[in-house]
């Protein structure tokens, strides 16, 4: 369990983000402690992916601050931060001009890791095995894989260098239940065994229960509920309640 006296690893303070007239984040506050696994849930289109991108500085908030280890994003040595960071994108975001193993080993071949081609390939194949993909996929191109396989290659790429901060955007979407179970266990393992700080976005309640220490629910541009996963079922928030039980009726409109 994270220690509350520590500085949060990642912190969003009153983050606002709009696209043109469309307001997506309207003052999001979120803390992620070192070694904590935070799961973000929320309706489709509520800005979960946008939240992750704001944390990374890929998207610039109009207002509010992103802090990493207590320091504003602009002052952080992004080189050092990114070298210990991995991210699985919602769509996989594999480089389609490179083969599967080259995708996974992309960072391993570069500074500061600088592995030889042979070592990098071996490491890539080992990571592919961890996400349930055999060595025969290594030389295929991403376009030759199914959607779920692409997702898992993206996951293997995110964890290739054993980073300590990892973002997973819907890691189990499009996977069969068995494979989803494998991936959930893998994420949990990264957090408990390697002490990684993880932020996971998911719609899958099994993933929430397996992976999360803390759960945050986004709704209408704000963090609607944030607390330990153990408190989720007894929480009285009607929005959270409707969401985790998947009811069509409740405070969250079905048309958004």
């Amino acid at each position: 369990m994270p220690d509350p006296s520590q500085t949060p690893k990642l912190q969003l303070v009153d983050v606002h983000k709009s696209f043109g007239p469309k307001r997506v984040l309207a003052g999001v506050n979120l803390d992620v402690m070192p070694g904590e696994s935070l799961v973000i849930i929320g309706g489709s289109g509520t800005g979960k992916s946008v939240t992750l991108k704001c944390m990374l500085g890929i998207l610039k908030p109009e207002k509010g601050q992103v802090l990493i280890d207590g320091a504003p994003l602009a002052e952080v040595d992004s080189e050092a931060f990114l070298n210990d960071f991995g991210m699985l994108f919602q769509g996989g975001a594999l480089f389609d001009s490179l083969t599967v193993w080259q995708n996974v080993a992309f960072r391993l071949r570069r500074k500061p890791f600088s592995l030889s081609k042979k070592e990098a390939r071996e490491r890539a194949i080992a990571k592919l095995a961890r996400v349930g993909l055999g060595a025969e996929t290594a030389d295929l191109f991403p376009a030759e894989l199914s959607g779920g396989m692409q997702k898992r290659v993206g996951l293997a790429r995110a964890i290739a260098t054993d980073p300590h901060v990892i973002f997973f955007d819907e890691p189990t979407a499009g996977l069969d239940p068995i494979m989803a179970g494998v991936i959930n266990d893998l994420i949990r393992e990264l957090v408990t065994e390697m002490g990684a700080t993880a932020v996971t976005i998911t719609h899958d309640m099994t993933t929430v229960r397996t992976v999360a220490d803390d759960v945050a629910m986004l709704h209408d541009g704000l963090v609607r509920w944030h607390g330990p996963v153990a408190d989720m079922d007894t929480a009285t928030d009607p929005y959270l309640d409707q969401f985790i039980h998947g009811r069509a009726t409740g405070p969250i409109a079905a048309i958004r």
Partner: protein
Amino acid sequence: MNLATFVIGFLASIGRSVLALLTATGRVALFTLETLSHAVRPPYYPGEFGKQMLTIGYFSLPVVGMTALFTGAALALQIKAGGGQVASEQLVPSVVAIGIVRELGPVLAGLMVAGRISSAIAAEIGTMRVTEQIDALTTLSTDPLKYLVLPRVLASLVALPLLVAVANVIGIMGGYLIAVGTFGFNPGAYIKNTLDYIDTVSVVSSLVKAGTFGFILGLMGCYHGYNSGRGALGVGQATTNAVVSSSILILAANYALTQAFF
């Protein structure tokens, strides 16, 4: 609507276009400077540069070669039609040589490669943008400008002069084939006349133009792809913008360079 509101509306629309143009120019300038700044800061990606040289240079040879061949041949036909047999023996080789080397070689090669490469670059980088591959590069500690843009811009800058050198030779050959084959001109005299008329400034201007056009088409492909809108529509738009803007800029640059050289 009375006249005053109409005039004001019209002026406002002009003002908006001018502002839009200035903004776009500023954006392109910033993009260019940032890209070029990576040329003096390691790491470098020579492998990417090599790959691009192959696609942009080598694989454009057939298109550029065919264009030059037919243009040289057509030019010879036109000049012959304009002059008599005797005058033509002198006129055809000289005008073909000068026309191809100074103008048609670089301009046509530039436009053909703009159509072929600028669009392909915009589509590739645009697709990478909309499928989050560019964001993924950033999270993998790789600067997309350094890894994607710089190699493409440099490769087009280097490849175009090489392509144009080849295009010039093939274009002159096109004229030669018609002159010697169809008109029955003396081959030795044709070649001698050609060489007499090609001077250093023609060759240098040809290659400088080529390099400039290469830089323009590489840059425009990258710029529009990099700033592509979302979805397939965005990528399609980026591709069109890349071809249109690089073609127009190539023609404008050609005018400016011709003015500067001659």
